[in-house]
């Protein structure tokens, strides 16, 4: 794929005119689903996506194709063969290349006028505020349960909406949006870490939830020998292409709804949850938990 340079504000008027015409053409088929005013709103939105893997990759592509004009990508990883089965930004020619760099290359090839910034680092308690502040919304597409706690704690404190996702074997997924008006992430997902300082002990406790999720997957049809191997660290998290990409698209749709803020098309605010199970006739439903909480091990 060709790397196209970003257009800076210093470009000549004629090429500004040219790029505006180009954008009109690129987004021509959006009009009708969105108004011109809404398309401008999307263009002026600043969004941060943390993780450019199975969910983050398609989310970023979808955001760029919808017309989001300011995108920050945070990922420190490099592409590996085991990403190919589902990650839209991965390819053989990108093996061992930085995911965030590749995300930038693809986004600019979709529309060279998008402002893309990348950070090749891990999100921690030390840098979370600096990374997230200044964005209008943040999408959590990481696979670390500890990083997720930090993202949603920080976003809520900064009063920035944050989108949560899950991809769980065999065919399950989840998406919901937090804001400063929703209950906290760790309350909604019944995390024992709620209100606690993130000590090594607490971090370990959070990370263990993933083993519980693997065990619970078996009753939904995941292979029992896989769950055992995962818990023994002999197998990776199993995740297939259609599910990861549906979850990523739904995350981008949450961003779209947050940006438009239409009265009749609100985001799925927690504790309401977009629940995906592609093995069931009700493949995607919006559900409200009975006592206001979900059990993360079961999602």
């Amino acid at each position, binding site marked *: *794929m*060709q790397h*196209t340079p970003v257009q800076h504000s210093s470009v000549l008027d004629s090429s500004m005119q040219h790029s505006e015409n180009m954008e009109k*053409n*690129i987004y*021509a*088929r*959006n*009009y*009708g*689903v969105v108004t011109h005013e809404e398309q401008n709103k999307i263009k002026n939105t600043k969004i941060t996506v943390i993780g450019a893997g199975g969910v983050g990759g*398609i989310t970023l592509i*979808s955001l760029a*194709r*919808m017309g989001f004009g300011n995108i920050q990508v945070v990922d420190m990883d490099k592409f590996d*063969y*085991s990403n*190919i*089965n589902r990650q*839209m930004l*991965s*390819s*053989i*020619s990108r*093996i061992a290349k930085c995911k965030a760099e590749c995300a930038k290359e*693809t986004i600019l*090839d*979709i*529309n*060279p006028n998008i402002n893309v910034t990348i950070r090749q680092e891990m999100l921690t308690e030390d840098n979370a505020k600096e990374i997230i502040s200044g964005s209008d919304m943040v999408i959590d597409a990481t696979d670390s349960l500890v990083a997720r706690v930090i993202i949603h704690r920080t976003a809520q404190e900064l009063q920035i909406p944050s989108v949560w996702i899950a991809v769980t*074997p*065999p*065919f399950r997924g989840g998406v919901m949006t937090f804001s400063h008006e929703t209950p906290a992430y760790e309350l909604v997902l019944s995390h024992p870490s709620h209100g606690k300082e993130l000590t090594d002990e607490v971090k370990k406790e959070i990370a263990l939830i993933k083993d519980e999720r693997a065990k619970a997957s078996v009753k939904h049809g*995941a*292979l029992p020998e*896989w*769950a055992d191997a*995962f818990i023994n660290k002999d*197998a*990776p998290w*199993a*995740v*297939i*292409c*259609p599910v990861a*990409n*549906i979850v990523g*698209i739904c995350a*981008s*749709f949450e961003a779209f709804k947050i940006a438009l803020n239409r009265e*009749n098309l*609100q985001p799925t605010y927690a504790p309401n949850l977009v629940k995906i199970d*592609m*093995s069931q*006739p*009700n*493949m*995607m*439903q*919006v559900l409200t938990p009975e006592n206001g909480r979900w059990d993360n091990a079961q999602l």
Partner: protein
Amino acid sequence: MTNNLSLDEFYHEVTKKNIGVYTKEEQAKLRDSRVIIFGLGGVGGMESILCARSGIGHISGVDPDIFELSNINRQMMAMSSTINEYKSVSTEKHLKDINPFLSANFHNVRVTEDNVDELIRGHNLVLEALDDMPSRIIVHRAAQALGIPSISMSGSPPHRGFVSSFFPDGIAYEDALNIPTHGKPISDPAVTQFVHDIKKKRAQYSVSKGAPQTWADDFCSGKTGWIITPIRATLLAAFSCHEAIQILIGQKPLAPAPKGIYIDMDNLTSPVSVIDPECGYWEAYQI
């Protein structure tokens, strides 16, 4: 680029995260599968990527068009750098970068009653991602006659979509969608008229589902195109591909026709579900 990995080593490395959802035997079935995709736009392009990433061993694609700027908002291979390239050529190149060992056969032609049999023969499954009704009818008729399952889709504004799977011994495409063209050649004036009318009817029906009246009127008078975002196109591709994989590995598909996977992302309680139409068929203009 594959670091001298053998074909088997490479295949294992790229598909190992599927295992646990699919068994090794099921994954081997995907490796031996041959699919053909008609239409390489918003839905078909994404289907080709999902099939390649899932580890399907052979993919054929059929599309006569080139990429234009207005494809970029939803078509995965449409980039600033691929504008004016043939979709079939760009898609094959893209897929080979996902799996250099992929067996691929891409055709820069429009599907017709004359070439459809030859195109479909030798495949285990057909994915139909075309944007015009006559071609859709041609593809599903041929697939059923040749004894090959075919996945159909359709999408309408603002965020609605429909996916259904057809089988050699099941209901025919035209019956499942209540299209009164059965047995008639595609060139029959009655077929042309029906197809012409249904396009307008679909646009006007979309207004009742949230599309703007001004768009529907402009569409009906030929002033503007069918509106579509990456949300709908990608969801249609992912649900179609899931149906395809279920069939190829010998599991039950969710929506054997007349059952359909119905998508409506503006429905805030049940955005996607499998629906079994009470009367036994769908109305094509409503999906």
